[in-house]
């Protein structure tokens, strides 16, 4: 059975989604357990593939038994096995942590929420494992459409936010599709490995250059790189908390992964980094993204919007790190895909819990949060420290590689932007912690602060959150192993 993991990891959530849609009419109580079991199975399969890749190297799966490029092939290698495992873990933990919130937010439609959730995951897993450029587009659309629906079912202005998300997302996906079409036009193939073999003959071709730029622009739009980030803050802040903590860790990170995949394994490395003068502008774009998003984050008055902007800055980290073009920066970018997924999940889970218990997540509502919800706030503190980049949390280590790579490449602006963003993050998070810790003030100085009702979330919500928070530290401590055993093998030898 384990030989079929590449197909099963995508097909099982897909089929489970159909079954959940049927069960919703027949036996509603069975939907949640089925979803959880399926996601746990996916995680198991992902971990199994990661193990296999580490032990015996990359392997392929030919769907329908047609050899590529005739048919569609899945290619499991170090890069996607790692990302896949991270995403599968995030999806499972998020469902475990937020099903209570989902029940409250979605009421009768909660079972359809599970079905869409599974579809979203199936699409995301598929994007990560696929080795076919067009198949990626189809899976991307599954993820996107289920994502639009999930976002659109949020509070207040969610529908409008979701529609804008559709517009930007569709332009992004269409650009990607157009880029793939350009490549097909000049190569006649859609298989990524085959493309990588053919493209070196076509360096001077303007079509290839245009394809690269169009596809990258599309991906930048999908990953919300400044200044194409417009859809993200509203989409994330208007959606309901279970959706937010699913989409925030998965969407942008998956798109960064796609960028890495396309720039390293579809286009030859010397094309992406040598032939085209794309790397330097991309780094500058990333620097602008980091600085601008950090500044915009400062002016937000609610936690989730602030985090949304922090997220945009993090996208800049990954894009910039990747386009530094050296091994260290790229290691940092790939590591940050995993780490950022984990810390975004951690932060948004905490925010979701706060919002559920305090019914509001403006900064004012956080007064006394440390006394009212100590565990949730502890989780938020860990997430915050990780985003600031404090060892031994994982955020420090990816930043380590990113800054190291920038130093090696002599990109001082990127070094400055990373340090700046760390400091801004410190300000952002400690501003929140201050409100939660100090306010409301005691009547007199040195008096005892007023007593507040204990309002912690139930243990079933807290436990997955604590696991995530612990995961941030464990990931950080495992950095050495992840880098030497997995990421080193994931980066082509041509990158020095």
């Amino acid at each position: 059975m384990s030989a079929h993991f590449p197909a099963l990891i995508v097909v099982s959530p897909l089929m489970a989604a159909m079954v959940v849609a049927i069960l919703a009419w027949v036996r509603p109580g069975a939907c949640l357990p089925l979803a959880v079991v399926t996601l746990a199975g996916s995680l198991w399969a992902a971990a199994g593939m990661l193990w296999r890749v580490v032990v015996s190297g990359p392997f392929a799966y030919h769907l329908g038994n047609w050899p590529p490029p005739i048919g569609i092939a899945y290619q499991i290698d170090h890069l996607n096995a790692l990302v896949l495992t991270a995403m599968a873990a995030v999806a499972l933990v998020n469902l475990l942590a937020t099903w209570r919130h989902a029940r409250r937010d979605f009421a009768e439609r909660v079972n359809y929420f599970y079905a869409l959730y599974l579809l979203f995951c199936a699409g995301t897993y598929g994007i990560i494992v696929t080795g076919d450029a067009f198949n990626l587009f189809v899976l991307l659309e599954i993820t996107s459409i289920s994502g639009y629906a999930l976002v659109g079912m949020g509070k207040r202005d969610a529908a409008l936010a979701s529609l804008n998300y559709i517009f930007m997302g569709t332009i992004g996906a269409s650009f990607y599709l157009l880029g793939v079409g350009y490549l097909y036009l000049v190569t006649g193939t859609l298989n990524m490995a085959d493309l990588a073999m053919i493209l070196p003959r076509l360096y001077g071709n303007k079509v290839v250059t245009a394809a690269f730029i169009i596809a990258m622009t599309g991906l930048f739009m999908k990953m919300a790189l400044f200044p194409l980030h417009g859809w993200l803050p509203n989409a994330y802040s208007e959606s309901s908390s279970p959706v937010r903590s699913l989409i925030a860790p998965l969407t942008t990170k998956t798109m960064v992964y796609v960028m890495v995949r396309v720039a390293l394994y579809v286009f030859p490395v010397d094309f992406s980094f040598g032939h085209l003068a794309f790397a330097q502008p991309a780094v500058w774009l990333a620097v602008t993204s980091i600085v601008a998003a950090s500044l915009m984050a400062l002016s937000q008055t609610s936690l989730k919007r602030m985090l949304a902007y922090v997220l945009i800055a993090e996208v800049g980290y990954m894009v910039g790190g990747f386009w530094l073009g050296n091994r260290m920066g790229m290691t940092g970018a790939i590591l940050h895909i995993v780490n950022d997924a984990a810390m975004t999940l951690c932060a948004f889970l905490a925010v979701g819990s706060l919002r559920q218990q305090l019914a509001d997540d403006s900064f004012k509502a956080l007064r006394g949060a440390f006394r009212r919800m100590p565990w949730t706030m502890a989780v938020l503190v860990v997430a915050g420290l990780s985003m600031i980049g404090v060892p031994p949390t994982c955020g420090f280590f990816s930043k380590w590689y990113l800054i190291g790579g920038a130093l090696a490449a002599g990109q001082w602006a990127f070094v400055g932007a990373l340090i700046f963003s760390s400091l801004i993050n410190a300000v952002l998070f400690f501003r929140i912690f201050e409100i939660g810790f100090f306010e409301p003030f005691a009547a007199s100085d040195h008096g005892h602060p007023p007593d507040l009702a204990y309002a912690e979330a139930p243990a079933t919500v807290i436990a997955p959150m604590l696991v995530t928070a612990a995961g941030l530290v464990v990931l950080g401590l495992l950095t050495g192993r992840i880098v030497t055993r997995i990421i080193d093998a994931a980066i082509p030898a041509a990158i020095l």
Partner: protein
Amino acid sequence: MNTLITVKPLLAILAALCLPPILASSRSPNAREAWTFGAALTMFGVIASMLPAVWGGARLEYTLVQVLPTVSIAFRVDALGLLFALVSSSLWIVTSLYSVGYMRGLKEHAQTRFFSFFAFSLAATVGVAFSANLLTLYLFYEMLSFATYPLVTHHQDREARASGRKYLLYILGGSIGLVLPAMLIVYHLTGTLEFSAGGILAGKAGAAQLTALLVMFVFGFAKAAVMPFHSWLPAAMVAPTPVSALLHAVAVVKVGVFSVVRVVTGIFGTGLLTELNLGTLVATIASVTIVAASLIALSQDGLKRRLAFSTIGQLSYIVLGAALLSPSALTGAMLHIAMHAFGKITLFFCAGAIFVATGKKFISEMKGIGWRMPLTMSAFFIGALSVIGLPPCGGFISKWHLVIGALEADRIVFLWVILVSSILNAAYFLPIVYQAFFCSPEEALFERRVQEAPRWCVVPPLVTAAASVALFFYPQPFLQLARLATRHVLGGF
């Protein structure tokens, strides 16, 4: 030199690190305090048990986890680290006693949180002391920054918030803005972060780059409170006194100077600094801080603030000693970590005892207090003598070495700096003691009736004062460690 692989350094850290979960689960105050003592004693025991091996010239190592391909989180116990760890852990025991008296005496809130974060801070301090490389040091340095934040802001009022902000601004700004890039540059240049006796930077970078790096490190370790990165320390005095006593006279600030000493000796190497004459630069910065801080201290009326400025000055003695790069100066610097710790903690304990007993914070309100609290003020007197550097107190030994070191290095200017500042020290400490005991009855603000603070607030300063005196007569444990460390640093094994 032989190297032993042992888990002891990790055990010492875990002794403190395991405490918060235990405290969180125990509800009764007595159990909480018993556990705290248990942890403090265990930690001290583990650290003391490493003494014979280190005296014997051995080095204890333990690698926890290979966290980056070429850098690991690893511990190495050498003479310098052990000296610092020994001071911190022994004083934690005394401070725990004192905390019980102080916190109960003032009926402070959130005592569980207080003791938990206190333990965190100590774990981080010992972690810094035992770090084998710059990354591990940075890790524990940052851990200490965050662990002390809830202690500094313990009162949770507006003043605490303002101080907390200032504290984080300086400490985090320094560590993220300066130390982190500096560390990465070092890694980029050398490919390693391991502390080694001769330094790792020799021949890897030009003079200008090295100067910039050194400045980044010296200011970036803002806990060392080198001017102009000092003003968080007076602000942090809003913390409860046990925090000021152990953390802001011993653990936190000494972590700052310890880090500077480590970087100067282990990353740059004394040879390289001498060659480029960079020692003078740091020594000059330190001298300015010493004199300026002492002058400012003269004008402070708040007792704790005066002590804080005194600390700023004294810390720079250590930086100065390290920067002079001569054997005696290095020995003196390392000794001063210990000697100043015992002296200054006594002074803070006394300040706290006065506050618990009378509620007074300002020096001008303390005329004649010696009659009411004779034991406390006697301890204060001894502590002051030690900090000024007069016999028969431990402070004399370290200053003596510093003076000799300045002569050895043939830097008479710095000799004068030390002497002038000692006079200034005397000028801001002795009047307090004088007014406490020798003011006329009309001037005295207190009745002549002995009414000391609670027992657990009085015994600790007496213990540390006695220790200060004892260290004058028996400086051997620390002196030997400091000499070993100096030999190691200067490369003569």
